[in-house]
């Protein structure tokens, strides 16, 4: 059972990060390949706070706030830049973030990573095993999903859609595009930070490789295959993509090839999705 639970926990954590990416990429149309870096900021912030003795809930809150601010700061230049240029900035953000995770040894433990992150504990109850942690990750995913849903339903959500469709028309109607974008990058950052904090608390070990550019691309693949702008898509995507490695173990492949084949399948899924099913499994097209 623990194995099944630990699979669900990881999928739920990535679903939270996928929702964060979906909000930015699917809803507002800000394409970022730095979501893993933001998730990493949350994870490291949580690890440092938890190691300093801060209880789970405030540490989680701190992680979300830090990730939100970092996301906002790195998104700022993008608010002025058109599509392709921001992609490059976000590539840069991701690489610089990885460099910081590796080189800012005092906080991050450097390339060796941070082992022994304390177990999550709420009101004296410890959540040690996957089965126990499932409670936390499910509640967190539920809250994130609920807030994502109410956000999209609100007038603010409609504004975000409008910004994706035609930013100039929104500005011409007197809406504050910049403020809306800053707001959404804060929310999206907080989601990613929440995912990162849960990751750190559950795995209890983090290192720079856990949040590198391949993870960012994986999360984007999750959103594209699930489909943009819907909750179902952002939840389906992670479950499906994390299940692929488990399925691949059934194929008769030489072990050196399984890794590349898995990556190859991710790439093919991306191509197939953009050409034949731009709306993904349960969403709308980007």
């Amino acid at each position, binding site marked *: 059972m623990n194995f099944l639970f630990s699979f669900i926990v990881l999928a739920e954590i990535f679903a939270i990060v996928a929702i964060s990416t979906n909000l930015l990429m699917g809803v507002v*149309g800000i394409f970022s390949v730095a979501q893993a870096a933001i998730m990493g900021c949350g994870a490291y912030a949580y690890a440092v706070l938890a190691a300093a003795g801060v209880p789970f809930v405030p540490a989680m809150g701190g992680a979300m706030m830090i990730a939100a601010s970092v996301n906002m700061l790195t998104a700022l230049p993008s608010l002025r*830049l058109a599509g*392709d240029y921001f992609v490059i900035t976000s590539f840069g953000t991701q690489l610089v973030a990885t460099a910081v995770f590796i080189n800012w040894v005092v906080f991050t433990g450097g390339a060796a990573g941070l082992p022994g992150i304390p177990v999550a504990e709420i009101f004296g109850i410890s959540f040690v095993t996957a089965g126990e942690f499932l409670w936390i990750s499910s509640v967190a995913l539920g809250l994130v999903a609920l807030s994502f849903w109410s956000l999209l339903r609100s007038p603010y959500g409609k504004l975000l859609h409008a910004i994706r469709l035609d930013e100039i028309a929104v500005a011409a109607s007197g809406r504050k595009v910049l403020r809306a974008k800053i707001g959404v990058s804060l929310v999206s950052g907080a989601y990613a930070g929440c995912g990162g904090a849960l990751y750190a608390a559950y795995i209890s070990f983090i290192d720079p490789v856990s949040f590198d550019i391949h993870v960012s691309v994986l999360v984007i693949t999750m959103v594209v295959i699930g489909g943009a702008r819907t909750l179902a898509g952002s939840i389906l995507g992670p479950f499906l993509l994390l299940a692929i490695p488990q399925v691949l173990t059934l194929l008769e492949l030489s072990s050196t090839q399984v890794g*590349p084949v898995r990556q*190859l399948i*991710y*790439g093919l*899924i991306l191509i197939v999705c*953009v*050409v034949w099913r731009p709306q993904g499994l349960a969403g709308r097209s980007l």
Partner: protein
Amino acid sequence: MTMLFLHLVVDGIVTGCAIGLVAATFAYFYSTSGTFHVAHAGVYTFCGYVAWYCTTWGIPFVPSLLIAMGVGALLGVIIQGLLYARLAQIKASPLVMLIGSIGVLTVLQNLAAIFFTPNIIQFEFPWRIANVELGPIFLSVPQLLILILCPLLYVALLLFSSYTALGRQIRAVASNPELAQITHLRPRRMFIYAIAISSAMVAVPGVLVGIDQAMQPYTSLIILLTAVVAVIAGGIGSLTGAFFMSIALSTIQSVSVLLVSGRWSLAVVFVIFIVFILVRPEGLVKRKFSREL
């Protein structure tokens, strides 16, 4: 100290010439079709592996390089014909184009890993580590080849673009696709020519850098990133800007180890990029005025 400086500058220029051709070919296709062709990095890697594979069958260097260039052109045509053209047909947004391109990049890198090997490999040429002495400077033979071939190809691309009929037709499509359509230039065919040319050319630094150093499937993205920064900083659409900005960036990156620890050298490139964005945002963002050669 001055010797060290000189050596670092030379190293930067050699690396810059290789990246410069990547940047110039990327800029060429980008300004022609408007597609942000990230998979260019995949073609770069894959061609290197193709040449390596040829040499393991005993094929000499020059034919191997030519085969790699041919495979590169073919890959480019396949990518344009099967993916980009199709996406353009369904009026996909640039974002979707980019995601598709990332997909192709992932596929190419991993095909290289599956067909050939996921490990770091080296060419088996005996002349690979031979040195050439030019006064106080030592260059390996592959470095010398990079220093000669890449600028030559860049000049060839420039000449082709300005002085041949086909080159001019491609430029006409680039500056105004709608008009070109009316005048029967068939932009889609021109895009295929453009991607074939740039993909064949990008095979050259792919192979030469592989011979000079080593090859692995997953690192070309960093090279493309530096190239794209050079394309943007050099002014979108300007081949000359892309090529010389690459050399400038590589030289700065190489010389920067004198002042800062090498672990920040990548960050140096991005700081330059951010500065360019801040100083010249209009020139960089308003593509409509500059999407021409």
